């Protein structure tokens, strides 16, 4: 059901998004004539200056916003609204504070729409908490967890409903430098284990090049694509690798 690797999963077809001007202010064109595609199983990073509409792009894909013109296609069909096949992982984790760690992961599984899919709630929760290395924290509340743990919990909650793509909106931006590096490894580990397609927005060029198969470089608003860089380096990648450093340097120059 998740499609063969290499198949087209997402396509932006001349997508434009304009926020109408309110109270006489001029309309803001956030995204202009955007065209790109993402294949099943890919890890794609999107980088660009802050305020360039990267998050808006994810909102379009999540179905929280419709495009002003053009089409956003998911498996060949236009996106009509939020659905569990496209799960968002927010920058500031949007965990349910009144539910425990296990309760947050189980939330999606217990919804009417997802019941009766043959997955046992308890064993799925256990497996996911193990995947994100939160076993032992099942009965803690989100407020008891550290920033990195909350981010991992949010990923586990998203994975619970077996999405086809994870939309990650600067998921590591709020973490300190050390936690951030460790989490980059964790996200890659989760990606390799689950083989989900990941669309990863970041403003950190290093992070993008270390993690992704492809890096899409966006220009300042209105967002359009400056360049798409295929990163063909084998994993695990090392920051000190001169080839990697070369790519980072070139992309940095592009953004300046």
């Amino acid at each position: 059901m998740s499609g063969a690797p290499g198949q087209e999963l997402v396509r932006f077809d001349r997508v434009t998004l304009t926020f109408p001007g309110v109270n006489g202010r001029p309309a803001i064109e956030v995204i202009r004539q955007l065209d790109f595609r993402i294949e099943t199983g890919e890890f794609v990073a999107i980088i660009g200056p802050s305020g360039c509409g990267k998050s808006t792009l994810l909102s379009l894909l999540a179905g929280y916003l419709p495009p002003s013109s053009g089409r956003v296609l998911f498996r060949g069909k236009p996106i009509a609204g939020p659905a569990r096949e496209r799960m968002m992982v927010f920058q500031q984790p949007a965990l349910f504070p009144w539910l425990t760690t296990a309760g947050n992961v189980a939330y999606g599984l217990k919804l009417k729409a997802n019941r009766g899919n043959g997955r046992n709630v308890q064993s799925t929760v256990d497996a996911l908490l193990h995947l994100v290395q939160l076993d032992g924290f099942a009965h803690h509340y989100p407020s008891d967890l550290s920033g990195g743990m909350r981010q991992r919990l949010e990923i586990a909650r998203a994975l619970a409903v077996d999405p086809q793509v994870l939309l990650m909106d600067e998921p590591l931006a709020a973490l300190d430098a050390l936690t951030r590096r460790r989490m980059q490894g964790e996200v890659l580990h989760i990606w390799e284990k689950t083989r989900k397609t990941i669309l990863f927005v970041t403003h950190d060029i290093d992070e993008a090049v270390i993690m992704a198969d492809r890096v899409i470089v966006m220009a300042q608003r209105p967002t359009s694509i400056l360049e798409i860089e295929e990163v063909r380096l084998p994993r695990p990648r090392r920051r000190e690798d001169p080839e990697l450093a070369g790519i980072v340097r070139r992309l940095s120059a592009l953004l300046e």
Partner: protein
Amino acid sequence: MRPLVLRWPSFRLIERAALPRWALRLVGPLTVLLGWELGARFGLINTLLLPPPSAAFGDLGVLISGGYLGKALYASLFRVVCGFALAVVVGALLGLAMARIRLVDDFFDPIVELLRPISPLALFPLAILWFGIGDGSKIFVIALAACFPVILNTFAGARSIDANLIRAARSLGASEFEIFKGIVLPASLPHIFTGIRLAWGISLIVIIAAEMVGATVGMGYMVLEAQQTFRTERVFAGIFVIGAIGFVTDLGFRRLRRWLLPWYRETQD
């Protein structure tokens, strides 16, 4: 986490006196009572107007053993509980509906804002005409006065929910009803609870005032009657009981919140 409290160095001695915190918190009220008692004994204050606390506590014993306090307390608390319960149910439902449904907000918000500044006691004479001198009129004014903090706090709570929580639930596949039940309601509970605590405080204030204006039994009536017969020690006995009820019930509300909302941290506000 330890709250930030400025310490004067010499106070450390008292803190080191190995008294538990609750005992330390009794020191203030007991000092006031002791000063008052001594002032009365040594003729520094007019005991006709300000009888010593010992006289008030003595009369409290008489009231209890005579069964008079029990009767008054039962009458008052019955009215308070009924009015308060009405206020909580109506207030929470209306607050939630106003926060999530635009049409309901447009209909009720002007009504709420028009009624809110009116002193509930201004409506009490009318309430007596409508519901009689008994329980009905008191329950009505308590419910009316106490529902506003519940409405306003519930509304604020349901409106201040992080939009991403609702988006996350929607992506996970939640229906509109599941979002209301599973996200909007629990996310609003801390605010609703604050409204409930305020409503209880208001209920206690309103009942005494209402019973002083028109009643034949109750704590407010008891205090007023004592004043009219110049038994000031009985006035104070009644005041002590009213204060104690407010103090103990608020403690109970805090316990209840810790038990019902274990995930909620007051410092998150």
